[in-house]
């Protein structure tokens, strides 16, 4: 029987999982709770001027692409397996839906980051 191709998705699931485990709570806290309410942080750290500067920097692009796409691939693998456990569709259908969505997110992020320029 031939090799499974799952390792590709599993490694991305793993990378996304590690980043989410290390930085996820802080990221959600900062971007989703502290900055919008202005509690504890200066909300200006995420204003247009600073964010666009971050997104224009090659390292900033890398960070944004890594976080968004790897979180998406991490979620996709788990959602795929859970939908499969729940018998909500054929294996191939669920795979295309889940991994396809993550692929779309990756492409959209890359396109937006390129559009932002340098």
């Amino acid at each position: 029987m031939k090799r499974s191709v799952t390792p590709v998705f599993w490694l991305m699931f793993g990378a996304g999982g590690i980043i989410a485990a290390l930085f996820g709570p802080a990221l959600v806290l900062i971007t989703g709770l502290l900055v919008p309410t202005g509690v504890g942080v200066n909300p200006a750290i995420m204003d247009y001027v600073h964010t666009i500067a971050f997104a224009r920097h090659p390292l900033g692009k890398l960070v944004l692409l890594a976080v968004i796409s790897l979180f998406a691939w991490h979620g996709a693998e788990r959602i795929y397996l859970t939908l499969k456990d729940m018998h909500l569709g054929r294996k191939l259908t669920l795979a295309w839906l889940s991994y396809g969505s993550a692929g779309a997110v990756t492409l959209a992020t890359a396109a937006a980051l390129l559009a932002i320029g340098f």
Partner: protein
Amino acid sequence: MRRPYLRPIDSLWWAKPPYLAYTLREAAGIAIAAYALVLLAGVICLALDENAYSAWLRFLASRWSLALHAIFLIAMLFHVWTWFAIMPKTMPRLVIGGRYVEPRFITAAGIVIAALASFVLLAIALWVRP
């Protein structure tokens, strides 16, 4: 005579103990993906123009978004816990000084490192005054 009988599996196994805990653990992945979508929306708005980005910031400040991110935060913390609980299973048995290292020490080490990493990120955000 032989006439083996194969019982059909319960198609709702994932919703019942002891498997429900596993399904809930995997559900944390939904929150992680959903948070990525929120960030993607932000990046797209950033690429459009300043008005679009301001609209995204206003959405973040809304009650719905704050409630959503509170749920994301709980899901992320749950993810940290369950991630490092399962991590030792994906590694070969760790033997240090001739003795086997119990998985709970690996889990504890992982959680400490994650706490440090998130703390450092948080400290940077709290300290930076642009």
